[in-house]
C-alpha cells in the first residue's frame, strides 16, 4: 500500500516524488492552516495528548480516585508474569485473529472470484452478500447471533431435525470462540467488494494471451489473478488484522465477561474490564500500549515480507 501511496495516490508533494504538474508559486500558509485547523485541534487535543497521557499512565497505578503514583515498569511486569487472565486473553485473541482473518479473506476472495464471472443479477448478489457487512457490527446482530447459536436456537433446531445430537455452542469452551469467528467471517462483504474492484482492474488481454499459450484455468488463477491481486491482498490483510485485534462488541454482547471459562475473553474486552470495571487505568493503559506494539510488529513484518510476495505492476519485473 505504501508504494501505491507514494507513487500515485499521495496528494501532497513528497521529496523524491516527481509531479507532472508544474509547480506554481502560490503558497498560502494562512489559508492552508485555516482549512486544516479542525484537524490540527483534534489531532493535538484528541490524539497526541491522550496518546502521551496513556504512555504516562501506563507507568502509574492511576485508578480514577487517588493520585497517579509512578511505579515504573510494574504494570508491564505484572502483565507478563503475574496475570493469567491477561495471558489467556492474549491466547484467545491470537487464535481468534489468526483464524477469523484468513477465514474472512479467503471466503471473500472465493466469492469475489465467483461473482466476477457472473453476468446475470450480479448487482443483486453483490448487494445482498454485502449486507451482512453493513449491519454486522450492530448490537442487534450480536443479540441475534446469541439466539441463533443458543441451546434452543435455530442451529440446534436444524441439527435436531436432521437427527444430529445438538451442541451447547455458547456454553462449551471448545465451541464458543468459533461462534465469534463465524460472525466475523459472515461480514466478508467489504473485503469482497475490494477484491471485486481489484479483479476488474486486471486486463482481459492477460487471460486471453495465457489462453492462447495453453494455460488452464488453475494456471491462470495462480499465475495471473493472484499475483496481480497481491497489493489488494496486502491492504486487506493489514486492515482486517487491525480490525480483528480490536474486536469487542460481539464478545461483550454474546458472552459478557468471557464466558465460558474465559474462552472468549478477547484482548480489548479484558482491557475494557480492567479500565471500566476495576478502574485500573494504569494497567489498562499499559495493555493498550502492548496491543499497539503487537499490531505495529505484525504490520511491520507483513510490510517487510511484502517485497517477497506482493507484485507491483509499475515495477515491471519482466
Amino acid at each position, binding site marked *: 500500500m505504501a508504494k501505491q501511496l507514494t507513487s500515485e495516490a499521495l496528494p501532497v508533494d513528497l521529496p523524491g516524488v516527481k509531479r507532472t504538474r508544474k509547480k506554481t508559486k502560490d503558497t498560502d500558509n494562512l489559508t492552508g492552516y485555516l482549512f486544516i485547523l479542525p484537524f490540527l485541534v483534534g489531532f493535538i487535543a484528541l490524539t497526541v495528548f491522550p496518546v502521551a497521557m496513556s504512555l504516562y499512565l501506563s507507568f502509574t497505578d492511576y485508578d480514577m480516585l487517588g493520585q497517579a503514583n509512578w511505579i515504573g515498569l510494574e504494570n508491564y511486569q505484572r502483565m507478563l508474569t503475574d496475570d493469567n487472565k491477561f495471558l489467556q486473553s492474549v491466547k484467545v485473541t491470537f487464535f481468534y485473529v489468526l483464524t477469523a482473518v484468513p477465514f474472512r479473506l479467503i471466503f471473500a476472495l472465493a466469492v469475489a472470484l465467483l461473482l466476477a464471472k457472473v453476468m446475470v443479477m450480479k448487482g443483486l448478489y453483490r448487494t445482498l452478500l454485502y449486507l451482512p457487512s453493513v*449491519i454486522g457490527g450492530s448490537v*442487534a446482530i450480536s443479540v441475534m447471533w446469541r439466539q441463533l447459536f443458543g441451546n434452543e436456537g435455530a442451529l440446534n*433446531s436444524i441439527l435436531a431435525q436432521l437427527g444430529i445430537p445438538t451442541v451447547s455452542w455458547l456454553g462449551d469452551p471448545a465451541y464458543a470462540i468459533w461462534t465469534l469467528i463465524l460472525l466475523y467471517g*459472515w461480514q466478508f462483504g467489504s473485503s469482497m467488494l475490494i477484491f471485486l474492484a481489484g479483479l476488474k482492474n486486471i486486463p482481459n488481454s492477460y487471460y486471453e494471451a495465457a489462453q492462447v499459450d495453453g494455460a488452464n484455468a488453475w494456471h491462470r488463477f495462480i499465475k495471473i489473478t493472484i499475483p496481480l491481486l497481491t497489493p489488494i491482498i496486502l491492504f486487506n490483510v493489514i486492515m482486517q488484522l487491525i*480490525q480483528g485485534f480490536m474486536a469487542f462488541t460481539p464478545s461483550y454482547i454474546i458472552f459478557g465477561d468471557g464466558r465460558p471459562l474465559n474462552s472468549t475473553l478477547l484482548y480489548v474486552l479484558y482491557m475494557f474490564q480492567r479500565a471500566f470495571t476495576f478502574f485500573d487505568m494504569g494497567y489498562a493503559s499499559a495493555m*493498550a500500549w502492548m496491543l499497539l506494539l503487537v499490531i505495529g510488529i505484525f504490520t511491520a513484518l507483513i510490510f517487510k515480507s511484502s517485497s517477497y510476495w506482493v507484485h507491483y505492476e509499475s515495477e515491471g519485473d519482466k
Partner: protein
Amino acid sequence: MAIKRKTWQLIAQQLLLIVLTFVMLYPLLWMTVSSFKDNSTIFTTAHSLVPNKLNFDSYVEGWKGFGGITFTTFFKNSFIITILSTIGSVLSSTLIAYGFARIKFSGKQIWFVCMMITMMLPYEIIMVPQYIMFNWFGWVNTYWPLILPTFFGTPFFIFLIMQFIRTIPHEIDEAAKIDGCSKFMIFSRIIMPLIVPAMMTSAIFSFYWRWDDFMGPLLYLNQPQLYPVSLGLKMFSDPDSITNWSALFAMSTVSILPVFIIFFMFQRYIVEGISTSGLKG
C-alpha cells in the same frame, strides 16, 4: 456442444450463488420472521422461516422498552447523536480535505502523514485517556464525548474526499482565481458542488457507523433516558431478565431498520466508496 456446456455452467453458477446468498441471509430472515412468531412457538420450531401467524404484539410489547423508558426515547437519542455527528464529521472533513488537496502551505507533508497515522490508530488505544479527559470536563452522561470529536474531521473521510478532489482538473481552480475568486470562494462555489458524491458517501458511512456505535455510549452514558438504540437494545436483551423473546427479535429488527433503509437507498454510493478507497465497511 460447447454452447450447451456453457449454459450448464451458467445455471450452476446461479444455483451456487442463490444457495450462498440464502445461507448468508438466513440469520437476518430468521431474526425478522422470529419477531412475528408468538412466544409459545418460538422455540418449538426455532429454525422455521414460516411464522405460524403474523403476530405484531411483539412490536407493541417490545417498543415499551424497560424501566418505563420506551424505544421512542432510544430512537430519538440515536437520531440526535447520529445526525449531529454526521454533519460535524462530513463538513469538517470536507474543509480539511480541500486544505490538504488544493492549498500549498509549509508543513503540509508532516500534517498529512500525521493524519494518515491517526487513520491507522485504533480508537481502543486512546479510549482510556480520552475517558479520563472527558470525565475531567464533566462530560460523562452528556453527548459531548460522542459528538464533539467528529467536528475535528474523520481521517477516513478526509482521505476519501481528497481522492475525489484530485480528480477535478486544476484548470477550474485557476480559471476561478483569474476571475478573482478567493480560496474560500473556490472551495464553496466550485469544489463543494463537484464533490457532493464523495460527501454523500462519507455521510452514509458516518450514519451507519454512528448508528451502530456501541462502545462510545457504553463508556459515556449510564442513564437509560440518554441511551441510544444500540445501548438500549443491549440492556433490553439482558439474558437474565428477558422472557419475551419475540419482542427481543422485534426490537433487534427495528433497531437496524434505519441502516437498512439508508443502505438500500444509497447502496451505489457505498459500493463505489468501498471499491475506490478501500474504506472499511
